[in-house]
Structure formats: C-alpha cells, structure tokens
C-alpha cells in the first residue's frame, strides 16, 4: 500500500473523475421527459393509468399501516378496473428521491398519486405544484395545502381512546401498558388517546409506556422480537392489558401477551382476523382501527368519478375512518366492557368528550 511518486497520475486521475462526473451530470434527457404523456381526469371520464402508491422505508409487508394502504389500493384496482403501481423507496434516500419517484408516477399517467406516510409531505408539495391536473394524496400529514392535494388524516387518538376504555375495563390488576413502535409525534397521538381513555374509566390506573426505538430506521415498526421483549417486560411489571401501536413489531407484542395469557389490543387493521396471528387471536381484545385502505380507496373513487377530493379528509369515529374492532367473541361476551366502549364512542361522536391528540 505504498503511495509514492504518483503525483501526476493522481492529479490527472482526480481531474478526470471530477470533470467526468460534473460533465456527465446534466447531459442527456431527464427520465421524466422521456416518459409517457400526462394524464387528465377532467370531464368525468377517467383516462389515467391507475393508482400510484409510494411507501415509506419498511413499506409493504408490515401487516399493518402500509399493508392497509395496499389493501385499499388492491380493492380500488379491482373495482374500477384500473391499473396501479406501488413502489418502495431505497435506503439512504433523501427528499429529492421521493420527489423523483412521485414525479415519475405522475408523469407516467398515474392518478391519483399517494404518498403513504408524512415523510412524503415536502415531495408531494413540490410535485403537486408541477402537475396541477393530477390528484395527490398524502397520508398522516396536514401541512400540504393545495387544490389538487388531499390530506388523508386520521384521528387515531379517538380510536386509541376506545382502546384505553376497553383496557381499563378489562384489566383485573388496574395496570395496563402501551407499546409504541417509534418515539415520534404520530405515535404519541396513540398514547395520548389511550391514556385519556383509560383514565376516564379509572383515574388511578397504572399505565406502563414504552417506545421500541428512537428512529424508524432502527426497526421500531418492523421488529417483532423487540415487541415481544417489551411486552414481556410490561407483563412482568404487572400489566395485564397491552395496547400496541408498533406496526409489524406488534406481532411480537400479541404473541407475548397470548403466551402469558393476558390481553393485547391490536392496531390499524382488525388483527383478530389476520392469518399470521391466528394462533394468538383468542387474546386479542380488539383493535384500534385506522382505515388507511378506505382512504386510499375513497380518494381513488373520487378521482375516477371526476370529482377528486381535496383538502383535509379526516377519518374520525363519526366518518368511520377510525374505530374499534370487536371481532373477538370473548370480548363481546364481556357486556360491561362493550357497553363502556360503546358509550365512549357515542360521547365522542356527540362531542361530549374531546380527545386530546397530545
């Protein structure tokens, strides 16, 4: 590894690399220029190529949030007989890559184009301005305000409130737990609602709280083993109902709860019905629903029918965008719990109870 007497070779090579790289960048057509023509969804006749769905890192296959979006995507694809493309991001990418991804989808003629996750907000904002005829959707973000953008929001604190009521009613030790996937504001909403709901039943209830990781990149939403460890810890500490908002990691939470024969509460979709959790479903008290799939489907329908949604599209208990799944017969048998949850639901819808998001 000696490096002597290479001065001229080096400087020449360095110059060559620099010049090559700088000169190369910027020549040739841009990939979007050479794409197909644009699309238009005006006049009621849909002429787009279908739905463009862009996930965040750790997207498809999380059995939760992203898969819920995919379910809505599939349903819309089938029902309206349109095409669709769903794309996952790569590692280490920045907003510029997300811009390029959305732009490729828009340029290729997909309409609507939906960014799943708030990290797409800056990209949606930028691309939506360039493609005014395409409808964009952004899940979990309300910062993008444009005519052709629908902000798909969910009052997860409301469904979490119901989960809190159910947990506080079902616990025998007055001790429950919350496990969040990643320590971010979005997940804090779930915890805030859950805490408020539980304390509305029993102000002195003991609530364990834990977040699996600081950042999504560390796998807080995608590590069942982490969920399992956290759940075991809370159960040992005495909790006997555990609510998770942890994506795929929640599978570990539910598994651990079932093994210790305590209740778990699922999140996002009705986890009682998930085949991968069939062995543990008896211990799933219910699930706090967040109907991302429904929102994707509705947005697509509005575009296909020529009346695209725009602005804030809020899913709450009233609209059915969030809710509490009661598929487990063992849950339905507990009449007082069911009644309390039903009452809380009605109170929120009637405005008698306001759930704080943080």
């Amino acid at each position, binding site marked *: 590894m000696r490096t002597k007497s290479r*001065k001229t070779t080096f400087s020449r090579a360095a110059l060559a690399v620099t010049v090559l790289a700088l000169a190369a960048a910027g020549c040739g057509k841009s990939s979007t220029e050479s794409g197909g023509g644009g699309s238009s969804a005006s006049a009621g006749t849909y002429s787009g190529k279908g739905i463009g769905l862009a996930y965040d890192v750790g997207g498809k296959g999380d059995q939760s949030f992203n898969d819920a979006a995919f379910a809505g995507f599939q349903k819309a694809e089938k029902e309206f007989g349109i095409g669709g493309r769903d794309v996952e991001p790569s590692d280490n990418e920045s907003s510029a890559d997300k811009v390029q991804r959305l732009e490729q989808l828009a340029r290729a003629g997909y309409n609507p184009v939906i960014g799943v996750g708030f990290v797409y907000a800056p990209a949606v904002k930028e691309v939506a301005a360039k493609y005014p005829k395409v409808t964009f959707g952004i899940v979990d973000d309300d910062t993008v305000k444009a005519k052709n953008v629908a902000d798909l929001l969910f009052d997860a604190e409301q469904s979490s409130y119901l989960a809190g009521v159910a947990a506080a009613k079902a616990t025998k030790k007055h001790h429950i737990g919350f496990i969040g996937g990643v320590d971010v504001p979005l997940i804090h909403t779930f915890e805030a609602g859950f805490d408020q709901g539980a304390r509305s039943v029993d102000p002195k209830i003991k609530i364990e709280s834990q977040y699996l990781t600081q950042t999504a990149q560390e796998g807080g939403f995608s590590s069942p083993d982490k969920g399992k460890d956290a759940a075991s810890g809370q159960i040992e500490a005495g909790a006997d109902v555990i609510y998770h908002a942890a994506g795929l990691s929640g599978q570990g939470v539910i598994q651990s709860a079932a093994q210790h024969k305590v209740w778990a509460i699922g999140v996002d979709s009705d986890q009682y019905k998930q085949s991968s959790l069939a062995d543990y479903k008896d211990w799933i008290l219910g699930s706090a629903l967040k109907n991302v799939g429904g929102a994707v489907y509705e947005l697509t329908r509005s575009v296909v029918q020529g009346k695209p949604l725009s602005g804030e599209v809020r899913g709450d208990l009233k609209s059915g965008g969030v809710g509490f799944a009661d598929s487990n017969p063992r849950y339905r048998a507990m009449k007082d719990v069911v009644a309390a949850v039903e009452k809380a639901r009605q109170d929120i819808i009637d405005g008698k109870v306001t759930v704080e998001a943080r």
Partner: protein
Amino acid sequence: MKKFDKERVLLAVAGPVIALVAAIVLTSIVLIASGKSPIEPYTLMLQQAGYSDVQVLILNQASMYYLAALAVAIGFRMNLFNIGVDGQYRLAAVITAVVGAHLALPSFLQIPVLLLVGMLTGALWSGIAGVLKVTRGVSEVVATIMLNSIATALIGYLTLSSVWGVQVGNNMTTGTMKKSGWFPGIDLGAEVGEIYGLVFLAVAMGVVYWIVLNRTRFGFDLRATGESETAAAASGVDAKKMVLTAMLISGAVAGLSGLPLLLGDAHTYSLSFPTGLGFTGITIALLGRNNPVGIAFAALLIAFLDKASPALDYATPVAYEKEIATIMQGLIVFAVVISYEAVRQWGLRRQQKRVGAELAAAAAALNNSEKKEVAAR
C-alpha cells in the same frame, strides 16, 4: 521506476475489477436461479444512468458517500476502524441544523461557521472514542459502535419540542435554517434538479486528503503508525497522539458528510434525514482501497446502484426487484475483501518470483552477491 509503477497499478486495479466482475456474475446467477433475465436489469440500470435527473441524484448522493468514505479511509490508513462515522455525521448534521436555524450571519460567515460546527461536532464525537482508546485502551470498534447508539438517543433528545425540535405536521424537525446558510447549487432546471454546491467540497476534501497523506510529515507519520506502531515509535512518532489525531480528523470529515444535503436541499434535520451513510462509507472505502480516486469511483458506483435501481420496479413488460442492487452491493463487499487478499498474495508471489529470477540472473552473470533491485522492497 516506470516498470515498478505499472506493476503496482495493475495490482491496484485488479482487486476492484475482479470484485466487480465476481459480484456481477454472482448477481446474474441469483437472477437465473429466480427465473429472470440475467442481463436486462443491467441494461435497464445503465439506461437510467443516461438520464440527466438520475445523474444529478447520483452525483449528489456520491458527494455524501465520498465524504463518509474519506472519513473511514483516514481511520483505515492509521489501522483504526471508525465504525462511528454514522453517528458522527448524524449528530453533526443535527447540531449544524440547530446552529443554522438560530444563528443569522451574512452568508460569507454563516456557511464557514456551519461547516466548522459540523466538523467540530463530528470530531468531538469521534474524539471520545479516541480518548478512550489512548487512555484506557478501549477498542475504537466497540466504542464507536456504542457511540452510534448514544448519538441516536441524543438526537432523539435534542429534537424534542422542549429542546430544539420544531414539529411540522407529524414530522419532527429542527426548524428551517436561516437562508444565509443555504449553500447555492447548480440549478439545471425543474426537470433535472440541482447539483449540491458542496459537491465541490467533497472534491476538494479528496485533494486535501491526498496531499496531507502523501506530501506532509504528518501524513507520513500517520501511514507509518498504521503499518507498524512499534516501528513508528522507534523513529520518534508519538503513537498515542497519532491515534487521537487520526480519530479527530476522521470524525471532522465524517461531520461534513451530511452537510451537502443539509445545506443544499433539506435545510433542516428531520425524521426523514437519511441514516446509514457511515456504513455505506465503509463499503466504499474498502472498494476504493483508501485511495482518493478509487473512493470517488466507488462512491459513484454505489450511488449509481442506489439511484438507478428504483427504475427496475417500473420496468415493462417485466418488472424486476430493485433489491437486485442491494444484493449486488452486498456481494461487492464480499468480493472486494476476498479478491484484495487474493490479489495481494498473487502480487507477493509475483514479486518473489521476479526477485528470485533477478537474483538467479545476477548470480549467473556476475556471481556477485549484491544487486540494488533486491532492495527495492
């Protein structure tokens, strides 16, 4: 002298080339095994490289990879394995973003201050590992891995709304930086994008790296200590001081590697700021053989794989998994390590043979006992 150079260039190039070819062959085998065309993905990706907007993405990404890899390479030259580049650049980016959001100086002061803040933060973080190593003998590998985790937790704390965090929608940011700290780039139009201005910083750092290592007393000491600590000590080099200095410089360069994006485009540190640059930097430093030009090629190659592969998802009529590129990157790492070792041994054998032949020839010709070429190595 000239002949000797050629030999060395051959050896230097053989490693990466063999590694690349092996990685491509192995990836093709994976493709064939999964019943797909073993050639089309490559042509699709090469086609992407022809598009100007993809080129801009590649170049921007490569500039960050390049800085991260230089940071790793500085450690390697000193026989130090700085796995902590990842934590160092993330922490540096956070602190720089915070300073940039609260400090408002005119541009010509603001930007140097921000660069300095990034370097100092990175150096501070790697310095902890350096101090632990020279005072307590703690392996820098263990220390830097742990510092990565601590950096993550610290960033989590610093970005709380009660500290320096600013919540935008559901995203946690550090607030938008003052405009005077935005580094202007080369705007190639809305269709193509903008080349980060700090790409030039990356290039300049490469030149500085080469000059410092090869043309200064310090660089010589560093390389000497890296090759043999005892030998360096015997010639009067303070090994401990060298370890600490190398760690600090490595961290300072690491601290720069997130800044092209931060100052050029993002203007805030948020939950969507890329992570993992430091680990990719290790791959690139290995592939580039710690040589500034080699690292540049390696950074461009890995950035190319990153940015060209998403198109595989869109390919018609048959879509390919873009994870092909991930497989390839993994295989490159394996192939690089194996082929470098193989080439090194092959080179040694070649040298021995040549020396042996020269010796024999010399002995036959003159029956003399000494020839200067023998001392060449």
